[in-house]
C-alpha cells in the first residue's frame, strides 16, 4: 500500500501532528500491522521534501511531535491522481501449484494427493479468516472477505485441475 498517499489523504480534511496521523492510520488501516513511529516520521519528511505537505505550526518544546503538518495543493493533486488511477489487477499467472502438479505427473507421484493437501491447507486459512470475520467490525470483515474471495478462487482452480487431472497427465506424459 502506498503509505505516502494514505497520509496525504488523512491530512486532506485537516492538519495533524505525526502521532495523530499514526492514530488515524492504525484505526483505519492498521488492522494486521500498525505503522511504526519511525516510518511515520520518515514518510512525513519525504512528503515535506516533495512539497506535498508543509509544516503549518511548530509548538515550543522538544521532539518530533511539535510539528503540525498540512497538505499542500500539490499534495491534494497527488492524492486525487492516485485515487483516480486504477490499480493493476494481479495477473496470478505464475502458479507454483501448476508447476508442482505437472512435476508430480511427470515423476509418477500422486498429483491428486498434492491437490487434496493443498485444498485442506487453503480451507484451514479460510476457517481462520472466517472466525476473525465473525468477531470483527465492518472494516475487519471487508478485509477478511477480500482474502476469502481470493482463496476461494484458488480452491476453484484446485477443483477444476483435480477434475482434469487425467487429461493433463496424458498430455504431459505424451
Amino acid at each position, binding site marked *: 500500500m502506498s503509505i505516502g498517499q494514505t497520509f496525504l489523504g488523512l491530512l486532506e480534511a485537516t492538519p495533524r501532528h505525526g502521532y495523530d496521523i499514526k492514530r488515524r492510520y492504525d484505526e483505519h488501516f492498521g488492522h494486521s500491522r500498525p505503522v511504526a513511529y519511525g516510518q511515520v516520521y520518515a514518510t512525513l519528511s519525504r512528503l515535506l521534501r516533495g512539497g506535498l505537505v508543509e509544516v503549518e505550526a511548530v509548538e515550543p518544546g522538544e521532539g518530533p511531535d511539535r510539528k503540525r503538518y498540512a497538505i499542500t495543493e500539490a499534495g491534494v493533486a497527488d492524492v486525487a491522481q492516485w485515487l483516480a488511477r486504477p490499480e493493476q489487477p494481479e495477473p496470478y499467472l505464475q502458479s507454483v501449484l501448476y508447476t508442482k502438479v505437472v512435476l508430480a505427473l511427470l515423476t509418477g507421484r500422486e498429483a491428486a494427493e498434492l491437490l487434496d493437501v493443498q485444498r485442506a491447507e487453503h480451507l484451514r486459512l479460510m*476457517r481462520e479468516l472466517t472466525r476473525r470475520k465473525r468477531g470483527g467490525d465492518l472494516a475487519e470483515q471487508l478485509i477478511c472477505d477480500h482474502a476469502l474471495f481470493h482463496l476461494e478462487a484458488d480452491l*476453484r482452480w484446485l477443483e477444476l485441475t483435480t477434475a482434469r487431472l487425467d487429461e493433463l497427465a496424458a498430455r504431459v506424459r505424451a
Partner: protein
Amino acid sequence: MSAPLLVAEGLHRSFGETVALVDAALRIDEGEVVAVLGSSGSGKSTLLHCLAGIVRPDRGRVVFDGRDLVTMSDAQRSALRREQFGFVFQFGQLVPELTCLENVALPLRLARVPRREAEQRAGQWLERLEVTEVADKRPGEVSGGQGQRVAVARALVTRPRVIFADEPTGALDSLNGERVMRLLTEAARDSGAAVVLVTHEARVAAYSDREVVVRDGRTRNLEVAA
C-alpha cells in the same frame, strides 16, 4: 475419547448401474460442524441421506448414539429423524399454506406440543435467526435468505442432536448465504447440535470445524496437522 455421536462405515450404495457410494465413512462428534465437499455427482447428498436414515445403504453401518440405523424398522427410523435430527435443504422445505411462524412451530405440533407453547418457542427461534419480521407471512412472500433462516429455525426448534444441511445456501447470494451460515452455525453451537453440511462452496465450508471430501463415491478425510 468419547464415543462419536454419529458414525458411518463401509457405506456402499448404487442406483441401478450408477455407483453413488463406495466404502464411504464419516464420523461426527457432539456439537461438531463437518463440511462434506465434492464435485457435482460425487455422492455428497447420497452420503447425507444415508447418515440421516433417509436412504438405506446397500452395505455398511450407520450408528447414531449407539443404535444402527440400517437395521432399525422404518417406524423407528422416522421417529429418530423426527426427534433427533433437523433438516435444511436448498429449496422448498416450508409448507406454502402455513405462515412462517406456523412452519417453525410445525415439528413441535407434530410432537404434540400445545399450540400456544409451540408458537411461543417458534417465535424465539425466529428471533434467534433474525427473521421475526416474517412471522405472519407465508413462505411465498419472503426473500430467499429469509426463507432459509426460517428453515433453519424450523430445523432447530425441536433441539435436535444433528442438523443435516444440504446446500443450505445454494440459492442465495454470498451476503445472504454467509448470514445464513453464521446464524446456522452459531445457533447449532449454542444448542449443542452437530451439523453435517453438504456444500460445494469453499466459503460456506469455512464455517465448519473440519471437512470430508467425497470423490467418485469415496470419502477422503484429510486431517492436516495444526
